């Protein structure tokens, strides 16, 4: 690990030069240019981040670097590669044999889909061996090198190499893929969304590993992502892509603190993070253009607050903002004034205060909730010894009227199962869920018959909005019949016209106009954001008391997330609903919780380890796991702690069929002591803040924990 300013470039010589590089697809609707005359130098040993929304052409640009654009796309322009101590080569003019050597030996690539980048019927070892032999490399030394790289990536080489792809977890596969791309010691590594499908902790850990690997193997890295905060953590320079062109390019620090292009500024403002005041976060209006229909002049002008006639007529060239910082904008000097990054001067926005604890009856009350799954044994399960996964284990939580609780945790930690059990979709194996005091799973004999809610009333009161809007709407029905279904079921007195006007009204209310055009569409004719709005309306039509929102924004583009969260919050106020949010992203959790005055709950392996107001969870986390999550959350400011050692022992999450004893986090907790492995800590008050509770010995000042010896890694094996 380098200690001296790792973000500074050591040299100023380009390793890759791109000149007017375009990628074109011929389609029925006309030629579509998905990379438009990009000119760019990539410097030796730098990490260049390329940021763009989906459909901005960033993946195509990545493929073009290896001349690997899929048919029928064609690359034009000039790409020159300057290897160390060798003559330069023009990438697009290589012969087939030379290109075959060039790829992977000089430039390697890591694809977005690590899950599907391995041949499912061959072991990981075979992948390494065949790559080495295809390039006439010595297998034995090559495999030694491979084992070394795998170890550097915190993988057990023997175990991983002998596995089939489906036997590895997502994070392991992703690291194995990185190792595979490095096995021929390339000079440049192109990574296309390498962490998109991974959890925060894994994502952050891999980013950390990349920095080490980069130094160790003397690499130049091109890192492509839609996630601006993520790239801020690793890149030396950042290129922002909009509508198939580079909008802005400059050192990371400058792009984050003094962006010159209006798009970059708006993008920064629309990205939820942990530091910036939530009032400053605002959505970018409008949508990115279609490749066959890019606006004349500056392609951003329809969405740009600074646009004038010049912008409509002329495509701007790159203007020099500072030494190594360019922006393709006619008005880059005016942009900082017109689009301030700081929140507008205004009166303190009134946040609806929420009452927790003693105030009022809880709307929904979970008590010692347990959901255990037996791993499915199909057919005659006479011989199988089914394994039990405790998805949720002893969670107690009260949700009040107009309350908002955001559950945060890694995937597979049981947060979604917990949510589903809470709204009556997943029968718990232990504990109770009470809706206004009444057990929703059956036994309600202790409630007075007169006060009792019918099963229908409870069903209507608890609704859900799913993660993937594409699959939450039946593709075979039009929006009309999707939204009519709940009305037909519950409002007998409405005739067809009443239902239609109600649906039209709601569509307009969420900004889907003209509504009578949308009502006759099929789900596939809507964008992801629009689909999510329809799903939201459908839940709201029943006038529910509580909505489980299961990662409702994670499938949306970054610039649309704030807008969707604002809509959710606004609907909550309109309809007097409580929310139980599920999220894997601490920034989004913070935005929701802070804006609504709600709470954040942190879930680890089926247990609620910490819960409290966002101020405490974000700025004063008590549980070591919450701290790890906070560390893993990418931030928009330039961080000095980039090289800091991760506050976790192991990257990989333990096997949920065999959870660790005692405190479940002790296997990964840097603070763990012997007692943590023996017994699980009870939930105690975490700070003076109301409703802040933590399940960790470290909040109990007088506990034996403090006298105990720390666990060392040998104890855990």
């Amino acid at each position, binding site marked *: 690990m380098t200690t001296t300013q790792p973000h500074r470039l050591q040299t100023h010589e380009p390793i890759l030069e791109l000149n007017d590089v375009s990628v074109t697809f011929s*389609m029925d609707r006309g030629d*579509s240019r*998905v990379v438009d005359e990009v000119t760019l130098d990539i410097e030796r040993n730098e990490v260049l981040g390329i940021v763009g929304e*989906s*459909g*901005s052409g960033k*993946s*195509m640009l990545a493929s073009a670097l290896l001349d690997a654009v899929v048919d029928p796309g064609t690359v034009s322009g000039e790409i020159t590669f300057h290897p160390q101590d060798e003559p330069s080569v023009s990438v697009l003019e290589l012969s087939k044999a030379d290109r075959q050597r060039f790829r992977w030996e000089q430039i390697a690539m890591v694809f977005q889909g690590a899950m599907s980048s391995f041949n499912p019927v061959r072991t990981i070892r075979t992948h390494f061996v065949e790559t080495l032999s295809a390039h006439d490399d010595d297998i034995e030394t090559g495999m030694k090198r491979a084992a070394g790289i795998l170890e550097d990536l915190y993988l057990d080489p023997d175990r991983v190499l002998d596995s089939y792809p489906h036997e590895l977890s997502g994070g392991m596969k992703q690291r194995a893929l990185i190792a595979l791309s490095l096995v021929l010691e390339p000079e440049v590594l192109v990574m296309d969304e390498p962490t998109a499908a991974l959890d925060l902790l894994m994502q952050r850990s891999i980013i950390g590993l990349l920095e080490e690997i980069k130094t160790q193997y003397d690499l130049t890295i091109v890192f492509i992502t839609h996630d601006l905060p993520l790239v801020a953590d690793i890149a030396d320079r950042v290129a922002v892509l909009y509508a*198939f062109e580079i909008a802005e390019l400059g050192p990371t620090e400058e792009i984050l603190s003094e962006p010159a292009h209006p798009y970059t500024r708006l993008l920064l403002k629309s990205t939820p993070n942990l530091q910036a005041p939530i009032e400053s976060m605002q959505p970018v209006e409008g949508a990115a253009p279609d*490749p066959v229909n890019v606006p004349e002049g500056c392609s951003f002008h329809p969405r740009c607050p600074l646009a004038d006639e010049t912008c409509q007529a002329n495509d701007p060239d790159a203007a020099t903002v500072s030494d190594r910082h360019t922006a393709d904008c006619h008005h880059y000097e005016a942009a900082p004034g017109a689009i301030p990054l700081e929140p507008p001067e205004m009166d303190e926005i009134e946040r609806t205060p929420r009452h927790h604890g003693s105030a009022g009856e809880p709307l929904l009350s979970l008590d010692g909730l347990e959901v255990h799954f037996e791993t499915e044994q199909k*057919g*005659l399960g006479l011989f199988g010894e089914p394994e039990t996964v405790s998805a949720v284990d002893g969670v107690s939580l009260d949700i009040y009227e107009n309350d908002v609780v955001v559950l945060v945790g890694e995937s597979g930690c049981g947060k979604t199962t917990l949510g589903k059990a809470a709204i009556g*979709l997943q029968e718990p194996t232990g504990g109770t869920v009470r809706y206004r005091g009444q057990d929703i799973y059956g036994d309600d004999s202790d409630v007075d018959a007169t006060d009792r809610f019918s099963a229908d009333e409870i*069903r*209507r009161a608890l*609704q*859900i909005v*799913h993660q*993937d809007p594409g*699959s*939450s709407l*039946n*593709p*075979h*029905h*039009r929006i009309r019949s999707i939204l009519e*279904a*709940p009305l037909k*079921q*519950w*409002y007998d*007195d*409405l005739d*067809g*016209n*009443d239902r*239609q*006007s*109600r649906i*039209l*009204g*709601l569509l*307009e*209310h969420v900004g889907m106009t003209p509504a*009578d055009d949308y009502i*006759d*569409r*099929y789900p*596939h*004719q*809507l*964008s992801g954001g629009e689909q999510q709005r329809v799903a939201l309306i*459908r*839940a709201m*039509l029943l*006038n529910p008391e509580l909505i489980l929102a299961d990662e409702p924004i994670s499938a949306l583009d970054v610039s649309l997330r704030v807008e969707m969260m604002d809509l959710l919050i*606004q609907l909550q*106020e*309109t309809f*007097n609903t409580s929310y139980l949010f599920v999220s894997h992203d601490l920034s989004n959790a913070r935005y929701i919780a802070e804006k609504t005055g709600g709470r954040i709950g942190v879930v680890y392996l089926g247990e609620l380890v910490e819960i409290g107001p966002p101020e405490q969870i974000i700025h004063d986390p008590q549980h070591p796991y919450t701290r790890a999550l906070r560390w893993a959350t990418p931030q928009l400011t330039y961080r000095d702690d980039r090289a800091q050692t991760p506050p976790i022992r192991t990257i990989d999450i333990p096997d949920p069929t065999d959870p660790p004893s005692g405190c479940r986090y002790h296997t990964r907790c840097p603070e763990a002591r012997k007692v943590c492995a023996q017994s699980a800590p009870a939930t105690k008050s975490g700070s003076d803040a109301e409703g802040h509770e933590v399940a960790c010995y470290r909040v109990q000042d007088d506990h034996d924990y403090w006298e105990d010896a720390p666990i060392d890694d040998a104890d855990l094996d």
Partner: protein
Amino acid sequence: MTDRDHKETLTDALDGTISTDGGTATPFETVSQVEESRADRFWTAYDTYVRAPLSIVWGDWRARIGFAIVLCYLLMGTVGTVVIEPTAPAEGPALIQPFETMDYPLGTDDMGRDLFSQVVHSTQEMLKMITAGALFSVTLGTLVGAVAGYKGGWIDTVLSSITDVFINIPGFPLVMVLVAIFEMGENPYMIGILLSVASWSGLARAIRSQVLTLRQESFVESARTMGLPTHVIVSKEIVPPLLPYIVINLTNAARRVIFEAAALYYLGILPFEKLNWGVTLQLAYEAEAHARPQALHWFLVPMAAITGISIGLILLGQSLDRVFNPRVRARHEKTTADEDTLEATTH
């Protein structure tokens, strides 16, 4: 709608007490802006269920051919039996070649029976067998598969075990044995059903696994959360995605019934009074038509009849698949916006 005053009216409206005067500004109360008449609804239904499917079918050459072929057979089985007279021995000279005379367009067999008339008059019986057999196996297969997949638990275990047994039994020998033991009558519907006694199992297994997947889909979970009753969920959410699959299986089951029925008649295992494609084959075989060049057409005519309807059904099945695809539908329906959504080429 940020105005706090509207909040109460909003929730009231949602509670079901909707005012119909249409005067206020909330999105839920503007009732009569878009009045849809009975005629409008009729035209929407017409567009959805009649015009769009036809338009889709018409847009595909395979579908046009398949549709035409199947229509031909349907006409033969209905109108044909009225127009074309049944044939009798010694009606014409023996073994006239096809296309020799327009009186016997497909020629005659060695007893002077008109082969064209034989083909036409056996179509009706065959169509009845096909209909009964295909409907039986597809209905039973869908039902067993859907119930096993949706209900799960011991019901699934029992149904799946039965399905597995039938999947392992070769259908044709079983049918042969059953026919021999039960001494079948001539009712074509019964024969069709008997021929399908084992063939539902493959479909049942496939439907079960699809239902297991569908049950996990978010839109099915949403429907459950909205408190929709099970029959609505199954008919509105589970079945539509399965329809293309069911239709393909319907045509495949129909083909199988034809193949097996003709084979059983050919083997002389099914009793017969009237002639049909399989019986003609058997008579031709017994008369050693395969060894006599001048009797070749006697063999070829029933074989062509069997193969022809099979091709028609295959083509039709493949194209009907498209009718159920919402993406294709949307392009053919007038009421839906015509534009395609942005299909990003870059990802």
